[in-house]
């Protein structure tokens, strides 16, 4: 076990968002190469860069990953390509000394900053780069503990090398924990929590649920499976239509009562939400599983039940929707969406969470917050797609490295076989 991860005497930048790293970053200078042999220069550069890039990867493993061919791209102009066929570069005398047009001038491509690009392919590093964990080590722990999925399947190897097009997702609660401010654990709060825990819990009186005014649809749904549970037969269009009508009525009732928001109204809304959900899950039997999003389900139901006179004979004309009903249905779906979104937006105080609530970003996060272009991240679902391998382009190396190009070049030279 190593004694110290963050050094103050020997400056080491680590892949994390700690204040140690921030302080070291603020006073990092280029290593002194005077009075040093070439070997020493390379050694120093290698040890400096390797302390940041894939510090968790064993040296031999990294040596196998190292590639001397560094990827690069050049942005092309389609108009230029269309206007010229390339012969203009060979035309004229000398190297185009007499040509009228100034040659296209691009800034230099920092290939040497790409030395550690194979490390960026690793799953743990990518998770950290996507801002889902506060350090590469934490990202590694998330993977090992099974909080990470790749293409929808659990992946427990932090060394998995992402392929272009792979989607990885981390459990949102873990992301909130990793990137959120730390829970305040002073002596005072601990004592308060202990006191609260030691207090005997009073059994809560069961709330009076409006069971009496349970909507008809729930009754019908409750009744129907209990009769024939083993094989739930798909409901006929007429039945579905009936259920839909009930849903309509409820929607109408809920929308009418939704004028003032009080505790009672909220209760009503919750009931309504449940009813709509139940109705929709009844439709799930008929909607294919692929229609998971609300938009798809709504579109499917509309297509199935809205006026389509010539499409199918099996749909009896009774199983159709009026435009009014359709509008109502749309409203019901919108309401579900809004409810979910507002629940997501809430950010309430919750002492059970392992992070400070209401959630706020952890200290010093903003100085480290950037997302490289080879990742496309959706923060809402805590998922990201690894689009392509990082590349060097004119004036920009896509591998985020805190070191100067000279240092990276020396490190690159170290890993070339002959030194």
């Amino acid at each position, binding site marked *: 076990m190593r004694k110290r991860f963050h050094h103050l005497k020997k400056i080491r930048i680590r892949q994390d968002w700690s204040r140690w790293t921030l*302080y070291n970053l603020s006073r990092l200078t280029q290593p002194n190469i005077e009075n040093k042999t070439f070997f020493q220069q390379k050694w120093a550069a290698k040890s400096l860069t390797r302390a940041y890039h894939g510090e968790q990867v064993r040296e031999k493993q990294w040596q196998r990953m190292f590639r001397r061919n560094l990827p690069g791209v050049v942005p092309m102009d389609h108009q230029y390509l269309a206007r010229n066929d*390339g*012969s203009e570069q060979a035309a004229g005398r000398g190297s185009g000394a007499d040509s009228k047009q*100034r040659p296209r001038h691009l800034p230099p491509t920092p290939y040497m900053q790409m030395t550690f690009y194979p490390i960026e392919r690793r799953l743990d590093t990518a998770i950290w780069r996507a801002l889902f964990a506060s350090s590469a080590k934490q990202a590694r722990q998330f993977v090992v503990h099974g909080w990470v999925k790749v293409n929808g399947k659990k992946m427990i190897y932090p060394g998995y090398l992402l392929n272009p097009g792979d989607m990885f997702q981390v459990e949102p609660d873990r992301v909130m924990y990793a990137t959120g401010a730390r829970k305040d654990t002073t002596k005072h709060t601990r004592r308060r929590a202990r006191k609260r825990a030691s207090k005997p819990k009073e059994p809560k009186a069961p709330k009076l649920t409006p069971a009496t005014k349970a909507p008809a649809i729930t009754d019908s749904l409750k009744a129907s499976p209990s009769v024939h549970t083993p094989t739930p037969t798909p409901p006929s269009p007429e039945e579905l239509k009936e259920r839909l009508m009930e849903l309509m009525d409820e929607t109408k009732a809920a929308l009418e009562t939704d004028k003032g928001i009080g505790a009672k109204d909220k209760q009503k809304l919750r009931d309504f939400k449940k009813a709509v959900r139940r109705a929709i899950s009844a439709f799930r039997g008929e909607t294919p599983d692929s229609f*998971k999003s609300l938009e798809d389900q709504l579109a499917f139901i509309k297509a199935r039940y809205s006026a389509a006179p010539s499409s199918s004979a099996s749909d009896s004309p009774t199983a159709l929707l009026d435009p009014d009903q359709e509008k109502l249905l749309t409203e019901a779906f919108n309401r579900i969406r809004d409810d979910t979104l507002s629940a*997501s937006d809430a950010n309430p105080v919750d002492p059970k969470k392992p992070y400070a609530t209401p959630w706020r970003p952890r200290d010093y996060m903003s100085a480290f917050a950037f997302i490289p272009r080879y990742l496309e991240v959706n923060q809402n679902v805590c998922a990201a797609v690894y689009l392509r391998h990082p590349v060097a382009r004119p004036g920009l190396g896509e591998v985020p490295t805190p070191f100067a190009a000279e240092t990276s070049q020396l490190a690159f030279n170290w890993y070339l076989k002959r030194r």
Partner: protein
Amino acid sequence: MRRNMYAWINGPGQVFKDPLPGSTNYMSAYDKTGNLIRKRDRAETPEQDIDKAPEEGGSEKAGAWGVEGAAADEEGAGEAVEDALEKEMRRQAGEEKRNRAEGKDDKLPPENLEDLRPFPLNKMFRSQPVLSEELREAIWARVVKDGVSVPVVSVEFGVSNERVGAVVRLKQMEKEWIGEGKTLARPYSKAVLAMLPKTPYDPKNNRRPVVHESINDLIVHPATRQQIWEPVSESRRFTRVDAGRAFDASLLPADDRIPHPELVLVERESLAGLSKDERTQLAAKRMMDEQAKREKVERRKAEEAKRMQVVPGRRWDFVFQDVSVESVGRDGRGAGGVGWRYGFPHEDRKKGQVKIPTRVEG
């Protein structure tokens, strides 16, 4: 030493503790004493020089950033992207100037490229903008609702092909989560997007979408890394096709290797002076060809699937497909070989055999 560190953390480093509202908060935006450079500069600029300020900023950038300033002057696709970025920045600077003229001085000046560098030593890296929520939604709507093909959307929004695909995939997942009533990480999302530079999307002002990235990136082929001596007669018209062949027998010219070769074709047709009708006809024909090709591939896949016999089991499906014993190759160790071969033990217990999967099927 530790005392020094805490002195810095509680002194100049204090500014990094909490995010700067409405802006990025990277180390290069501050000087040694923890002052925001762009704010300090603005305070130093006398009032009468306000009109000159953006130009000055531009030239300063050219001096400090060098590459960017040079790039903005030239023509070319890479520069076009930078151009768009710079234009956007200039627009913001102009807006800011107007605000100042009106006396609304509370807002921070917009950051320049120099302020977007998280690592002070690495001049070749900066935090590049990410897609804003509105832009993601717009891309998703264009692809899924309007049914426009990915390359077209890519050109329209200035977002690369693969990013368009990824945005649609992720957005679809988000919508599914909403459909299932799962809680999204909205507080996190809002906080993170507030810390990052974003590519805006503002359809109301009738401006074209801001170009997010260069969409026609040509990958540097390893064969072109070397310099070669190719004697060519003076009378010969030596084009890109010939140059490609000189490097590698199978190397195609840049026109065919970029992600959007259709843009070159369209441009060429308009340069050739074809009328609008002819051009639309040609474009339609190209689209039909593409469609036919895609259908052919799909048909082949369907046929293959038909040939495969699938027996659904309780937990797994059993799939039967034709295999050939010849696929093991001459030494019996070919990668395409099927099943356990007599006399050849499995190698997975050997030293150095990596068992981490190399791909995960979605």
